[in-house]
């Protein structure tokens, strides 16, 4: 199970960095979404997964992921709100155009 998750995680990381490097604002935010999930998934496989009914699995990484998911959701909600605000107030969707503002 771990083995097939590894390529999935690496594809997610690659995809997210491709998106973040785009000029369009909404793609950057989308990239952040994918990136944060790639990180969570990596945390998920970090202790090594076991299938089926086993008496003991390590609960710690799962607690960590729960925390990370909640934090990530909060941050991304903020990112989305900021993105919306920038579109409304400044009317730009291009990261390059933002440069002149600051």
């Amino acid at each position, binding site marked *: 199970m771990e083995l097939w998750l590894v390529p999935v995680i690496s594809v997610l990381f690659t995809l997210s960095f491709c998106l*973040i490097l785009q000029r369009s*604002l909404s793609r*950057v935010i989308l990239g*952040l979404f994918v*990136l*944060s999930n*790639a*990180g*969570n998934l*990596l*945390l998920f496989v*970090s*202790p*090594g997964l076991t299938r089926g009914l086993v008496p003991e699995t390590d609960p*710690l*990484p799962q607690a*960590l992921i729960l*925390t*990370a998911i909640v*934090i990530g959701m*909060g*941050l991304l909600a*903020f*990112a989305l709100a*900021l*993105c919306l*605000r*920038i579109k409304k*107030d*400044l009317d730009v969707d291009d*990261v390059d155009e*933002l*440069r002149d*503002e*600051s």
Partner: protein
Amino acid sequence: MMAADSLLVISSTLCALFTGVTCLFFWNKPRPQRWLNLLGSLAHLFFSGLLLANVLESGPQVLRLGGWAAPYGIVYVADLFGAILLGVTGLLASVVALYNFSGGIDEKRERFAYHALAQFLVFGVSAAFVTGDIFNLYVCFEILLMSSFGLLVLGNDRRQLAGALKYLVLNLVGSVIFLTAVGMLYAQVGTLNFADLARKLATLEELPVSLHVLSHLLFVAFGIKAGLFPLFFWLPASYHTPPVPVTALFAGLLTKVGVYSLIRLYTFLFPHSGTGSFEWIWWLSVLTMFVGVVGAVSKNHIRKILSVHIISQVGYITLALALQTPLALAAGIFYMVHNMIAKTGLFLVGGVVESVSGTDSLKENGGLFKALPFLSTLFLVLALGLAGLPPLSGFFAKLFVILAAAEVSSYGSIFFALAVSVFTLFSMLKIWNEAFWKASPHGPDLALASSFARSALTPQMIAVTCLALLVLAMGLWSAELFDVSFRAAEGLIDPRAYVDAVLGPVSGGQL
């Protein structure tokens, strides 16, 4: 012997959380919030002072939440290094809270939770300084990041929005890199507790490649927060946009949490030399120092100069870290405290200038020395302190770094430390000449003089005076303070006291 649990470890942290939440109950009422912010910050200062005294007397203090023993439970630990920084955090929060009393921040922002966000920021920073495991450090980073996002966009200025986006994206990427590294660290070492990690990693003669790569991931994550050389772009893009009290808090606290984590990382977890990490840190520090100061010299607004300058100062601290001796690390800690105080002070002076003349542009300002001789003196004390002229704190901070470099014959470090401080002096004199010394571009301005008469003894001026006096005091009592930093540095280089306090000692006198 197990150290007694002490609630004092997180008292000041809880103070900030409690104050922040209470502020929310006074939504839309600036005055009570302002007082709450000040009182909460003073309580923070009081408790962190007590904690510091305790730590000085009886070594690292540990709090095991819920009584669960480490490494299974969550622990908060205050060693001397953390306690010192916690104290400075309380101090800066109090000074900035005082500064807000005479129009440091506009009422619109105050209505909309400025004070609560400032306290949450202090909460995140304080928690980061005393947390005993690396995942909680991540959580603290997120708390302070979230509050800093709020503070950064509060007010909805066009410039603020544009600056905030860069800050947000780069810091989010940094956070995910941090989280990824934490996951991999757990996979390889099986623990996230600092003390446990220190003990387990100390048994390794040589770092395996996987851990080596991981240390670089963490380095990148913390480097983004600290504003190290190739990773600092978010800082000049965003720091000058929010109102001055916000920037002053950011300048004093945010990058320093990154530096704090870097120091913990390379003293507790990966002190192994021979991996080339410290050579890398050395080169990056030198570049950070140099690029930061050159960037600062090229700017034409007080706040922009000071913002870019933060980067250069971070380089000095990591340079001390790269030298790997207790003396160097002590110099780095001394430097860090000096820098937090002087930098916040300078930003606050910039804020007073802006509130008097309406702009922080060097071209538009002038003649301030004539109009505001007292403020100008304070600026001179802080600026020369930052540049490093005796008998102010910066002189000794730089002297200690240079002495530490001389001890290990790192002449390159000495050269760069001196060269960069010449540029620092130059950039401070640029502000001095343009804003304070040259004649006002608008002719003799009576309005300036009269507003001085009104603002002579305002809370703003008291706040700035406090910080200027501290810069002077740190210089005058530098020997005593350096002794304390040296003890803190020894506790980092040889973390036995910390590890034993958290996990209990093992036989054989090993770590």
